[in-house]
């Protein structure tokens, strides 16, 4: 048993433990004597442990059988309740099958396998010799290549190696197989005359349908037929609300963006883009459920709490000849989260 506890520590470096010389320390008494377990001395206890292990393995067998019962006894295409029950059977079966084996083996190891602690010496990870030899080999190899003496070779190979991976990076250019225009983030499906329709059905909304205090989730007419439905929807969704016109405080130039107290705002949070789905009627606050940015509808959706910085963009609306709500134009600024080129 290698007991070296009173040697000086490995390495000749600074010993940080100033003030505690070895004589002031306790002697290591060594590994405590082995205490025999019951099964080591009493054959009856050993027999008992043996039986326990066997029972645990038997539990595992029962678990496997339970799994098969769960797998075959249930009618596929049944209700979700039946499915849950089947899941329970499969899970419990697997659990018993695994725990039986696992607990059995561990119990076996703990009670019946020798539990004498033994000590083994640690060997140095490396020897001084090896390191010196390795260093010399590296030096020799470098020397034989002559790379130090021939800077022309060195510099050209560095240049070549630096350039060679570039094609591998450029190849990923077509991950977005388009012109890469940042401008597309500025435009949505909204334009003059596009009707505001209900999400998801796509039925148009009459101004008279919108009573005070009500709110509509809105998509542009024709979205459901668009080939890029989800991408367009991710930018174009709008919340439509009506409140007492006196409660609104439009800034100069935006007085006619609503209609009789009906206003439409982008539903895409200006923080990182979740849908701002919660409208508190009493306070006229819009709340984003993702990080709780709160926008005040009466102040043109200014941020009054949370991590968002910018107000929700407003969609200017009006009423067409048939009384349906339509957009006056697209949004006047990009919707959703900020990005570098947004300006």
């Amino acid at each position, binding site marked *: 048993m290698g007991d070296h506890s009173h040697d000086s520590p*490995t390495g000749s470096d600074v010993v940080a433990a100033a003030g*505690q010389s070895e004589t002031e320390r306790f002697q290591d008494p060594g590994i405590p004597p082995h205490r025999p377990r019951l099964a080591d001395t009493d054959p009856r206890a050993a027999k008992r442990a043996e039986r326990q292990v066997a029972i645990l393995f038997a539990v595992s067998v029962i678990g496997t059988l339970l799994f098969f019962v769960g797998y075959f006894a249930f009618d596929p295409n049944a209700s979700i309740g039946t499915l849950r029950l089947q899941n329970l059977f499969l899970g419990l079966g697997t659990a018993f099958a695994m725990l039986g084996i696992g607990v059995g083996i561990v119990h076996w*190891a703990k009670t019946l396998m020798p539990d004498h602690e033994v000590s083994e010496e640690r060997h140095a990870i490396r020897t001084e010799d090896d390191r010196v030899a390795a260093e010399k080999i590296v030096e020799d190899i470098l020397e034989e290549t002559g790379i130090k003496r021939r800077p022309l070779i060195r510099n050209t190979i560095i240049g070549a190696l630096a350039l060679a991976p570039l094609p591998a990076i450029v190849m990923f250019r077509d991950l977005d197989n388009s012109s890469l225009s940042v401008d597309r983030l500025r435009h949505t499906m909204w334009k003059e005359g596009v009707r505001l329709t209900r999400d998801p059905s796509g039925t148009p909304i009459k101004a008279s349908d919108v009573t005070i205090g009500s709110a509509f989730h809105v998509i542009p007419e024709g979205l459901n037929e668009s080939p890029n439905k989800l991408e367009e929807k991710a930018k174009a969704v709008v919340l439509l609300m009506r409140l007492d016109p006196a409660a609104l405080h439009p800034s100069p130039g935006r007085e006619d963006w609503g209609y009789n107290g009906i206003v439409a705002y982008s539903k*895409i949070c200006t923080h990182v883009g979740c849908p701002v789905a919660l409208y508190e009627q009493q306070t006229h606050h819009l709340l984003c459920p993702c990080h709780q940015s709160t926008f005040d509808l009466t102040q043109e959706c200014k941020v009054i709490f949370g991590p968002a910085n910018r107000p929700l963009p407003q969609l200017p609306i009006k009423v067409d000849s048939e009384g349906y709500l339509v957009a006056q134009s697209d949004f006047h600024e990009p919707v959703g989260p900020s*990005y570098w080129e947004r300006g």
Partner: protein
Amino acid sequence: MSASTASTNYTPKTKVGRITNFVDERVGGSGILREFGRKVFPDHWSFMFGEVALYSFVILLLSGTFLTFFFDPSMTETVYKGSFVPLKGVEMSAAYNSSLNISFDIRGGLFMRQVHHWAALLFVASIAVHMLRVFFTGAFRKPREMNWVVGGFLLILAMAEGFTGYSLPDDLLSGNGLRIIDGVIKSIPIVGTYISFFLFGGEFPGTHIISRLYTLHILLIPAIILLMIAVHLFMVVVHKHTQYPGPGRNDHNVVGYPLGPVYAAKAGGFFFIVFGVVALMAAAFTINPIWNYGPYDPSPVSAGTQPDWYIGFVDGALRLMPGWLFGIPMEWHVPLPWGTNTLTLNVLLPALVPAGIIFAVLFTYPWIERWITKDNREHHVLDRPRNAPTRTAIGVAGFILYCVMWAAASSDLIATHFHVSLNDVTYWLRALFFIGPIIGFIVSKRISLALQRKDREIALHGRETGRIVRLPHGEFIEVHAPVDEYKRYKLVGFESPLPLPATPNAQGVVDRREKRRAKLSRWFFEDRVAPVTPRELEAAHGHGHHEEIAAEEDKKAVIR
């Protein structure tokens, strides 16, 4: 004499011998068995976390492979025709459709999904706890610094693997998670918008992201994880395992059980136990019931939804950051020669800075501590956390920082659960973000020192037995049972270094760096409780039971 002649001379007598001989004569391997068959491994409950991580990874490989046979990583629109009635006829992506089919129409599919998800949560959790164990016991010290770094990469990879997996079913929740990621990526200056385009193959959500994440999730990241695990375990074998301090244990030996049979049996058995526990969770607790969420749609979202736990801290950081700070906007419009660009610090800072700090400190900590303490020795005996009070306090501070962010990801749940205003919860958490780590540092350091003093007390005067006796002259005392020399050695056999003052370098000058190091060393070691020395023990016994003296000794031992 060559090996082949040697082997012909050897005739095995038993069946095992014949098999080993057959294998060894062809491919060798007896040497390895000889080296490792009885290799000694120290045993301690806290060494199990790494094993849990390894085993849950194996479970992930098994269950994940099953899922790949039925999962269709495509975003092509289809109409649901499976057996889950509420979604019949709904338009959805093929990915979501196939995830529903795995859940409802493949027998055992739901079980496998739940096993996979629970194992994923356990995988990341066990890596994290394993790292905490390594940190608080000082197991990252020389020669194990590089393995600590490998472990850090494994943690990041595990989180990435978990996030890519979480996104695959393409349900409403995971789609929203991707939308948040898209918003965070767009906040990166200069390249962010393009990274987003490249990732999604155009505008969010596009039709490519699921198949791309799929390749990452089932090929690239698992392969790297596997490689890293191999490197990690190889280094464990090279270094041999650390051991807790105690009688007979020192930096030059390993005390424990031989690999075969005890250790191998315990570790092997433990695999089945971990599998069994995961199966039990999958049986009893529903996780990620994607059928309740519906297919991804950019418009709806439900309140109170949570990402998987390991992503929580980033989400929480996003919530804590205010968009306006004392009336100053956190989004800046930077005028540049070609126009105005947008720097959206309210997203960029919380997404990058806290995680950046945590991981930067995590990766460099072994070198920082080695520089401060100038301790360049090899350490194979662990520190009990109380015996390294400052390190323990640093760890606790970092842990609390993490926990505050993590709690912030549930700020809305905290608010509704405790019936307080959401805004107040956020304000409190913002304050805790700064104060919490400081309080944690101070309190945990005090606790470490108190525990050390208690150890001294026990080493000097024995354990309190709770038995009160009356002495002849009337005084009542509690009987203290002396500890035996083995127990005592565990309490006294540690180092308590003194601060290391600045020393001149080779040129004989004390440079600024060295001065800074000396200051840090003082900060590190100035509060210390010295281990009991044999002389003190003698004195304590010589004076009989007197508690006052002991208290006095204690005061002396605490040098401030």
